[in-house]
């Protein structure tokens, strides 16, 4: 493996999905071929990402200057430990969600009625989304990061408004306008950075920003952080998320919830550690983290729709990651990275489970749900495990991630850090409360106990009641069965969440090494820039 040019693999997570998008667009008349191409491409990306994780851990950041321009003129793609880990987790998630979407598409095309995920557009757009996410993780300069964001945002616009139904158009307009505004802010930030330093290369910036006056550097930092905070849905810029995500098709919501906000979090980690290590803005970020956690989870507690509850917990738990970043210690950063990895998998799993609930019962409103534990014990088990994992019940990975963060917070020991520690614990308990409410209402009670309990047959969908020639349908009996593919993909996603618990030791050690890299900055800068440019 020593002679193998691993840096040449770095652009593959971007190129392969883009190539796949072109192919699936060309094969739009053959759904089978589309499915094969998409799965093959995303599986290859998982393999490449795995290889990059291993390689970056053994021999440091892998850098490729595109187009073989003389450094540092061209565009660089950089995979360090953080990027590689994010890439691996995100590619696994995109692969499983794709399998889920394929299962859903097949099941819907077998039944009557229109498909929620029109396959011809879905596959190319989905692959472009994967390319955008990879590009954002690998970008070695601010402008390429912007391009990565735009690629993933644009495909997210299309995916969010699939089918063009009324609710999705309503949600889509808000989402597009908010994203446009954050992109404009990001562009202003890039312009300011370039005007002040004459470069947008992250490695060069890490050197040159140190020479700026602190006031100028602070302006640059605040501009970039605001742009990323909108994308990461940090309070008070989080209101767009619970309005837009729940209306999308289930697999789309799942992949959005898992990945899109985390790309924003990744950008914040990168910028805070690499560009502005001397200005941690501890107070500001900690208050933002606290408010994100508390306001988000209170939203979740007060909601009665499953998708909205999960959207609010998503916002709330972004606060944990911001908390880790705000601590600006290696332990805090390591905790934040681990939390991102944990949260991507578990939030995606929960949204996939919601998709199955919607399929089984025809609704995700808690007022009209009940008896799911009897209707599908497998689904109930998956939800229970994932919900406990998210709310941080020992020994699951959610618990380990939270302990890591709280531990780092206690080690910092300022009064505000203690407030955050308490806030984190309260948020964790309220998450448990919100999800336990879902469990007892949707899964545990009988359907007859639901406040808006529909007439028995209608509750499980009209399919069974009408066609059976007057045969009474049991209250809890599901009218539709869960397709095997969808269930398998969801189970696999939950299993990945559990796997993070199993490999938590090595993974936590890995994130600690990643955080040490980020804190020292030297591995990143020395591997990107040749000796004579570093000044």
């Amino acid at each position: 493996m020593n002679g193998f040019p691993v840096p040449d693999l770095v652009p593959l997570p971007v190129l392969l999905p883009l190539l796949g998008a072109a192919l699936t667009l060309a094969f739009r008349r053959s759904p089978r071929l589309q499915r094969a191409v998409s799965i093959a491409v995303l599986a290859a990306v998982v393999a490449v990402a795995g290889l990059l994780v291993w390689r970056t851990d053994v021999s440091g950041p892998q850098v490729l200057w595109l187009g073989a321009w003389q450094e540092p003129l061209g565009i660089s793609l950089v995979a360090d430990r953080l990027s590689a880990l994010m890439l691996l987790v995100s590619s696994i998630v995109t692969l499983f969600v794709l399998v889920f979407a394929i299962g859903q598409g097949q099941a819907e095309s077998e039944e009557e009625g229109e498909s929620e995920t029109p396959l011809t557009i879905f596959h190319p757009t989905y692959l472009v989304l994967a390319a955008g996410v990879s590009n954002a993780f690998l970008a070695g300069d601010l402008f390429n990061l912007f391009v990565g964001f735009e690629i993933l945002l644009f495909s997210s616009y299309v995916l969010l408004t699939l089918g063009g139904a009324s609710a999705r158009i309503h949600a889509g307009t808000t989402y597009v306008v908010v994203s446009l505004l954050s992109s404009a802010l990001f562009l202003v930030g890039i312009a300011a950075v370039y005007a002040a330093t004459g470069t947008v290369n992250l490695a060069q910036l890490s050197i040159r920003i140190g020479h700026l006056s602190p006031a100028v550097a602070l302006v640059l930092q605040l501009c970039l952080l605001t742009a990323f905070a909108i994308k990461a849905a940090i309070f008070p810029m989080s209101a767009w998320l619970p309005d837009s995500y729940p209306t999308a098709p289930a697999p789309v919501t799942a992949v959005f919830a898992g990945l899109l906000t985390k790309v924003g979090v990744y950008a914040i980690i990168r910028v805070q550690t690499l560009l502005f290590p001397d200005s941690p803005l501890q107070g500001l970020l900690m208050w933002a983290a606290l408010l994100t956690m508390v306001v988000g989870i209170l939203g979740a507690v007060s909601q009665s729709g499953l998708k909205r509850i999960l959207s609010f917990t998503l916002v709330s738990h972004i606060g944990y990651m911001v908390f880790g970043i705000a601590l600006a210690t290696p332990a805090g950063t390591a905790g934040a990275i681990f939390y991102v990895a944990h949260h991507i998998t578990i939030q995606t799993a929960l949204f996939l489970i919601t998709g199955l609930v919607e399929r089984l019962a025809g609704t995700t409103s808690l007022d009209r749900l009940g008896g799911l534990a009897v209707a599908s014990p497998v689904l109930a088990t998956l939800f229970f495990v994932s919900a406990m994992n998210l709310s941080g019940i020992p020994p699951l990975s959610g618990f380990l991630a939270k302990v890591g963060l709280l531990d780092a917070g206690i080690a910092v020991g300022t009064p505000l850090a203690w407030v955050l520690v308490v806030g984190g614990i309260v948020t964790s308990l309220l998450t448990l409360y919100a999800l336990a409410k879902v469990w007892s209402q949707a899964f545990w009670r009988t359907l007859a106990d639901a406040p808006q309990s529909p007439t028995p047959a209608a509750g499980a969908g009209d399919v069974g009641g009408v066609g059976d020639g007057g045969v009474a349908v049991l209250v809890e009996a599901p009218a539709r069965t869960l397709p095997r593919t969808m269930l398998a993909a969801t189970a696999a996603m939950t299993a990945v969440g559990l796997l993070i618990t199993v490999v938590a030791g090595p993974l936590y050690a890995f994130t600690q090494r990643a955080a040490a890299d980020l804190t020292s900055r030297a591995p990143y800068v020395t591997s990107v820039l040749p000796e004579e440019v570093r000044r």
Partner: protein
Amino acid sequence: MTSLAPTLIESTLQPNITLVLVTVGLVAAGTALALDRSLVRVLLGMVLIGNGVAVLYLVISGRAGRAPFVGEDPAAMSDPLPQAMVLTAIVISLATIGFLLALSYRLWQISGTDDVPDDAEDAHIQRLALEDQTSSTYDPSEASTTTSDELADEDRSPTP
């Protein structure tokens, strides 16, 4: 990506005050439009903000100069990198605006108006608040506080 000649930037970056004013004017007008209820006005506001930011890239590219070809004197040529960046940004915003235009047309098709609608859940909560009702998941028997319904009952039948 980095500048061809970083020193060039540092020596020549004197912000063009006219362009700065144009940026400020465009972004301010765009913000005012974006705060409107009509989606087409919001869209126009976004176009103006995007154009304002594009003009900002002319400010940061420093003094205008000759086309940056090989063989040109670096001191006489304009900085090509901001131009390359802003071209990318313009293309992206063109595509996004096109998409938003399609969305607003679809919105008009569906609802006969291009007003940005209230979020369904927000509207629901607002209606409940106006009717002085609690959410369907709220159980008064579990709460210790007196609700407004209970107060109304007491008003009708005052205890001696």
